[in-house]
């Protein structure tokens, strides 16, 4: 396959000081297999970047390296002007690197509301010291409960507030996964296939939320998504990963129509969707 990175244009070459998130030569290998291979690029505020590539390309692993679940074997992660490579997952989360998971990852025995409230509590530095408060009664903090309820309303889950998460449908669990990331109110949002496994009527709810974030805030959004119509509709930029390497990067139309993507992944135009899976 063509190993050229000449497709990398504009964004990664932009003034690095303006970048909110930057990965420099970032990589990891699992027993000799380079899952992510020296990925250098940067992400800016107010832009939604879609990260695409076939299954096993290293998209989730790239997210894991950024949010810290996997330690990098090479390279660095920078959040604004701070090198966060050595920080723990929780430290990175509190600094504004927010992450939703491809495989739903919730607190199954706690209520829907409590899942969200815990996120809000974690981000609250003042009264509750990020949860290091041993003596106040949690339910006294009505503002946190109110806030969590608002977020659940925005994903139209207010009716399920009190349900244990384990009893939710798969689609609702996916929505809650997204709602938890929104509750973090991070600087950088990382969505990993947020609509995978959702029913057709639930998908727009989540996509509208992401679109809302993009238009009404100046946040940095990274989105791993397979549905090309969604990517075309939402993304300001597309980054293509293949075999752990960044092989294309640019404006959506430009990347989708580029030779490298056409040849390597899409084959014919008709196979576009399948190819990018």
């Amino acid at each position, binding site marked *: 396959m063509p190993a050229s990175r000449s497709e990398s244009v504009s964004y990664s070459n932009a003034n690095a000081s303006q970048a909110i998130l930057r990965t420099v030569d970032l990589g990891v290998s699992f027993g000799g297999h380079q899952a992510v291979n020296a990925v250098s690029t940067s992400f800016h505020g107010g832009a939604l970047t879609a990260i695409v590539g076939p299954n096993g390309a290293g998209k989730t692993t790239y997210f894991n390296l950024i*949010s810290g*679940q996997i330690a990098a074997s090479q390279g660095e992660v920078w959040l604004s002007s701070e090198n966060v490579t050595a920080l*723990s*997952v*929780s*430290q990175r*989360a*509190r600094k504004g690197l927010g*992450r939703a*998971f491809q495989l739903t*990852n*919730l*607190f*199954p*025995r*706690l*209520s829907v509301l*409590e899942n969200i*409230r*815990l*996120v809000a*509590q*974690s*981000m609250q530095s003042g009264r*509750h*010291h*990020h*949860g*290091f*408060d*041993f*003596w*106040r*009664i*949690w*339910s*006294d*903090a009505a503002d946190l409960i109110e806030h969590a309820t608002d977020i659940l309303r925005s994903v139209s889950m207010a009716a399920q507030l*009190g349900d*244990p*998460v*384990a*009893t939710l449908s798969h689609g609702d669990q996916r929505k809650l996964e997204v709602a*938890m990331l929104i509750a*973090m109110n991070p600087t950088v949002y990382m969505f990993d296939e947020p609509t995978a496994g959702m029913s057709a009527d639930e998908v727009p709810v989540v996509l509208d939320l992401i679109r809302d974030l993009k238009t009404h805030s100046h946040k940095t959004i990274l989105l791993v998504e397979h549905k090309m119509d969604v990517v075309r509709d939402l993304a300001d930029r597309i980054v293509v990963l293949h075999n752990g390497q960044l092989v294309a990067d640019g404006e959506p139309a430009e990347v989708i129509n580029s030779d490298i993507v056409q040849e390597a992944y899409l084959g014919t135009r008709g196979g576009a969707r399948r190819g990018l899976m």
Partner: protein
Amino acid sequence: MTTLDWARLISKDRPGSRVLAILLIAIVAGLLFAPFALTGAKAISICVKIMIFAVLAASFDLLLGYTGIVSFAHTVFFGIGAYGVGIALTRLGASWTSLAAGILTAILLSILLALVIGLFSLRVRAIFFSMITLALSAAAQTLATQLSGLTGGEDGLVFRLPPGLMPNARLLDSKLLGLTIDGKVLCYYLILAMSVTFVLAMLRIVNSPFGRVLLAIRDNEFRAEAIGYPVFVFRTLSNVAAAVFACTSGVMLSLWLRYAGPDASLSFEIMLDILMIVIIGGVGTIYGSVVGATAFLIAQGYLQDLLKASSAASHILPGIDQVLSPDRWMLWLGLLFILAVYYFPAGLVGVLRRPAGKLNAKGGRPAKDRFIMIYRWMGRAR
């Protein structure tokens, strides 16, 4: 403020069932009036054991039910509390200052040890932590019997309490409602006050923002970390808190027995008792420890008597009297335990809270899963 704010006193953690509320009130009231109503030394001693084990089991529940970690070193902290008081009173004399010094030293030592255990083993897998604590518990038993110069070895330490707490201290000239108010009675109420305070304190901790994080960690430590909670730090703090409360229950034991010994505080039987109390009462409820301790200790105390009566009645049939022999009480308790776990997997509190036929609101596991889970814990213990 004219009325006591009951809801705040129990940290707004309502028992969630009228029967449970009445049961809890009955237990506290029973313990409050026991010295006036009960005459036998055995009955009173069971009451005191209920108070002590309610705190000890609740502190274990802090780990098992709220943080999701299985520690077998809980008796070590119980022992540190018991021996701390014992050694201080033996060495420094029976004064209030030496009692205070003993308690303070024991608590500091518990904090330190819990921190060290946490730092070395809480970062790794839960099973490894359990193994370390198991080894530690065995080491503590050996240490206590070997360091006989300090601990009295196998025999343990018999010591005197500060004068006001000794049975021969007369605190009131006349009897109160037919009861002589002596040091022993004062000691009883001191332990009751400590017990109620500590259980309420633990109830507050589990209902604090910190306690909610512990529940999150129990459910999904990976996600707890991902939303910004340093899991390791929370676990270590929970381990320290549990150790401190276990230590104070050891203090209560020493105050009552005026004795500290390996079998009374460090033995593996006590660890099993704690486990059974928490599971019978209901894991992750705190209230369960109070109810569980009451049920378990009454059963433990009177099952032998019951068997004695039954075996005497059945001596005509060979074999039956063997099974009903008072020495078999542990067998019967074990059977009762297995039945209880099988039919009431969420413990007594779980049964009382759950509307009949419905899944409990906390998403309780089905009976079979819970049984398997407990079987695994017991498996680990061996």
